[in-house]
């Protein structure tokens, strides 16, 4: 049921680029109900996009990217795609090299895994997100009508909560909320923090044993080996750091002001619904050192996204639904897809204000990124230049679909908490808090 990242990036037949473009334009004209890929009928997709990657045509082949954030297994997702949009997809992929009609084999061949994947509302499938939104709206309407004459104000919070519960129980539309209360307390806690706790326990245990060894002056052999290993790693770290610093000194960072027309055309696709998207592509700096560092940082972010940033914010940024990094063209280029709430300015501003360390850690390994020191310092903190750089490497997204265009990440997570608390017994104080959540105002 969990959300997964799926992406297929295939080369486009040079003569068929314009045909592909007009097909995608048809979809863009009515993304939900168009005749080629009727996204509103795809029950496994949260967000999806088609992008023609055609920058640096002299060096890299033109490619078509299809990416989705989906529920169910990859097999089931692909099956649904074929079932609902087989005809349209056939037309689209006929514009790509080597497509012979066998989707499964083709997708397998051109599938690209995510190097780092972040989800703003983990563990909730599309149906659950929609159900919980309906639940929140129904409770709002119920409260509005019941309290028209102020009668609810004379009751206790838990009495009101029970009244809401009774109303919901009586309505078969909300059977899902009655049957399943949503993730349980301790289970949820461990699921979200388990790995982190194990990690901390391991470190704690190690330090304890070292301490014990120092105290009794008797180190078990395996502990000695472990200490030597750590010492070696520290040395290696400083060697690598020196190499990095030397590279950074000679890094080129030319951030030209971006062409106004380009920004305007990107902005023409923005600010229609609550959410926005961006597709961003950069060339990795040459050399294996940079490539390996990039992969390491992406791996670290991917891990952190699972064990630490799994409760609705990525490094403090609360507005990202799904984001992923993918490496293409033999790891020479880094592609970034993001689906987020609010404006581009707000999103990039959050990058600068809240998550500049992590983002600099990733993108300082790409060409022309604002001057960086020690992999994570400066870089994205140079606000104006970083934003200029971001627009420079942003590319148009021909087709973009969102399955819940009126919901922010905070809405979705709040709705889950409303559902979770609805049939749970709680104190008056907690019930009052729960009631406050309904509108969150």
């Amino acid at each position, binding site marked *: 049921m969990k959300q997964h990242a799926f992406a297929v990036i295939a080369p486009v037949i040079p003569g068929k680029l314009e045909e592909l473009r007009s097909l995608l334009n048809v979809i863009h004209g009515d993304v939900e109900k168009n005749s080629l890929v009727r996204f509103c009928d795809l029950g496994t997709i949260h967000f999806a996009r088609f992008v023609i990657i055609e920058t640096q045509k002299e060096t890299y082949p033109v490619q078509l990217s299809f990416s989705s954030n989906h529920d169910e297994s990859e097999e089931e997702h692909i099956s649904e795609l074929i079932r609902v949009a087989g005809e349209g997809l056939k037309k689209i992929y006929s514009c790509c090299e080597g497509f012979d009609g066998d989707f499964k084999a083709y997708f397998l061949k051109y599938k690209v895994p995510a190097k780092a994947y972040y989800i703003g509302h983990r563990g909730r499938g599309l149906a659950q997100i929609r159900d919980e939104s309906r639940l*929140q709206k129904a409770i*709002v309407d119920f*409260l*509005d009508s019941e*309290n028209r*004459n*102020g009668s*609810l*104000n004379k*009751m*206790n*919070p838990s009495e*009101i909560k029970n009244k809401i519960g009774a109303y919901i129980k009586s309505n078969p539309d909300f059977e899902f909320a009655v049957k399943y209360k949503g993730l349980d307390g301790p289970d949820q806690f461990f699921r979200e923090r388990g790995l982190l706790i194990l990690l901390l326990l391991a470190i704690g245990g190690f330090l304890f044993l070292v301490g014990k060894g120092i105290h009794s002056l008797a180190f078990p052999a395996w502990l000695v080996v472990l200490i030597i290993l750590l010492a070696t790693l520290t040395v290696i770290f400083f060697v690598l750091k020196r190499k990095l610093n030397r590279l950074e000194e000679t890094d080129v960072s030319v951030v030209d*002001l971006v062409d*106004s027309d380009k*920004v*305007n055309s990107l*902005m*023409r696709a*923005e*600010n*229609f619904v*609550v959410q926005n998207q961006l597709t961003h592509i950069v060339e990795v700096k040459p050399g294996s050192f940079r490539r390996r560092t990039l992969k390491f940082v992406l791996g670290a972010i991917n891990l952190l996204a699972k064990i630490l940033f799994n409760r609705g914010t990525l490094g*403090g940024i*609360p507005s990202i639904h799904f984001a992923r990094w993918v490496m293409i063209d033999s790891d020479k280029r880094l592609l970034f897809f993001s689906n987020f*709430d*609010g*404006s581009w*300015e*707000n999103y990039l*501003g959050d990058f*600068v*204000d*809240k998550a500049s360390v992590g983002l600099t850690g990733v993108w300082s390994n790409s060409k022309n990124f604002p001057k960086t020191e020690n992999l994570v310092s400066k870089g994205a*903190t*140079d*606000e*104006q230049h970083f934003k200029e750089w971001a627009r420079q490497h942003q590319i148009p997204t021909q087709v973009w679909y969102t399955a819940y265009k009126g919901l*922010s990440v*905070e*809405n979705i997570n*709040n709705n889950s908490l409303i559902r979770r608390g609805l049939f749970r017994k709680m104190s008056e104080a907690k019930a*009052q808090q729960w*009631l*406050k959540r*309904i*509108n*969150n*105002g």
Partner: protein
Amino acid sequence: MTAAKQKYEFNEMQGLIKRGYGTKKFTDFILLKIEDAVKAKQWLKLLIPQLSDATADKFDPAINVAFTHAGLDKLGLTAHIQNNFLREFQEGMADETRSRLLGDYDWDKQVSIADSWEWKDAAKDVTDGNVIDVLLMVYASAQQILDATYSRVKQEASVNGVREFKRLLTKSNDFLKEHFGFHDGISQPTIKDFSDRTDDEDNTINAGEFVLGYSNQYDICPESPEVRSPVTNEVFDFGRNGTYLVMRQMEQDVKGFWDFIASQSKDDSNGSVGKVDEGAAVFLASRMVGRWPGGTPVATCPDADPGKETDENKFLYHSVAPEHFGKCPVGSHVLRSNPRDFLGTNKKESIKLSNHHRILRRGRSYGKPLVDSMQCKDFLCTPNDNEERGLYFMCLNTNISRQFEFIQHTWINNEKFNGMYNDTDHIAGSYPGDFTIPQSPVRRHITNIPVFVRVRGGAYFFLPSISALKFLSEL
């Protein structure tokens, strides 16, 4: 050892950067079009000695001048650009793509409202005659001085190829209230080391946020427009000591606002046909604003209107008395336009973040008040007239998209602000929506509130330094 105070070139900055000329209550904003670029430069030469800079306020009237990108283009400046102006300024506030961002968009008709603005900085239709070039601001201490100055500057301009397009009259009232009846102009950032006035650290902002040539809140000097002189071939920092000026004519439907408030404040004992409970009406309106009519913040004093006039501005939402905490609606106008410590969950970080999006407000009201007393109870019972009234909203900032546009899109017009669902700003917002008032045990939720403000004109201007104006006049 305290850090050395920042030094500023006040003699270069136009006065509006340093002061709002609040004591000069008689003000005109004159919109002009350049018809003869060569002659217009002569006009500039005449104008420059009359301008007020940011040193002591010695002239009466004080005059300042600003230009749209179209105006600077006509004067030939943009042909010599080395480092360009902000993209937002180049494209204009009235640019259609920007309209969606700013809330100037009619979603039903799928068209920008700026198309029908009475004055603007850009238009996609080349025959649109409402694009202006120059904004002349005249602040006087008496009506006669204002009128005499207006006649004189209009004459000086017209003989020099600069024609008046529109004279925007303003009208301030003795209560310092805006037209809905609320004390306005209270919250202003204090610029670091700008004057002897001190303020809390969390309301003290680096000058670079409001005037070019100095460090901003990121401790970096923001990008400034630079021009290559056709005479000396040297690069001149045109933007230094200048800034971007945002202006929007916001018509306020005062009667519509108070009628709506009245409809939601009926005395319940007689059902829906009851009398309007004046106290409840003021309470509701104040909740929407975030301050009581006299200016006291709802956050620090939520239960009843203390009645007095105040400029109280040193407060944080998390630092109010515990029994008051959480009573100010999250969607209120005052909280939305400066969230202080109330963004997200971390107070200190919130203040730091809020301070990346501050503006220096310089607006003036226009139009006759619906009621001279400006008292809420009188608004409730006075019938409507057919007069236009509202606010010429104006602000200064050096980064239009991070400051003004951000506040407008991400705070004011954002129904998802701070985790909400469908609440909008009903004092300055562009869209209808809901409003949630925190109450125990159940919130008060008002839905489908119409819009009470209509933008009738708008532009991004540049307010150049004295040296930049001289450079322009000699181009």
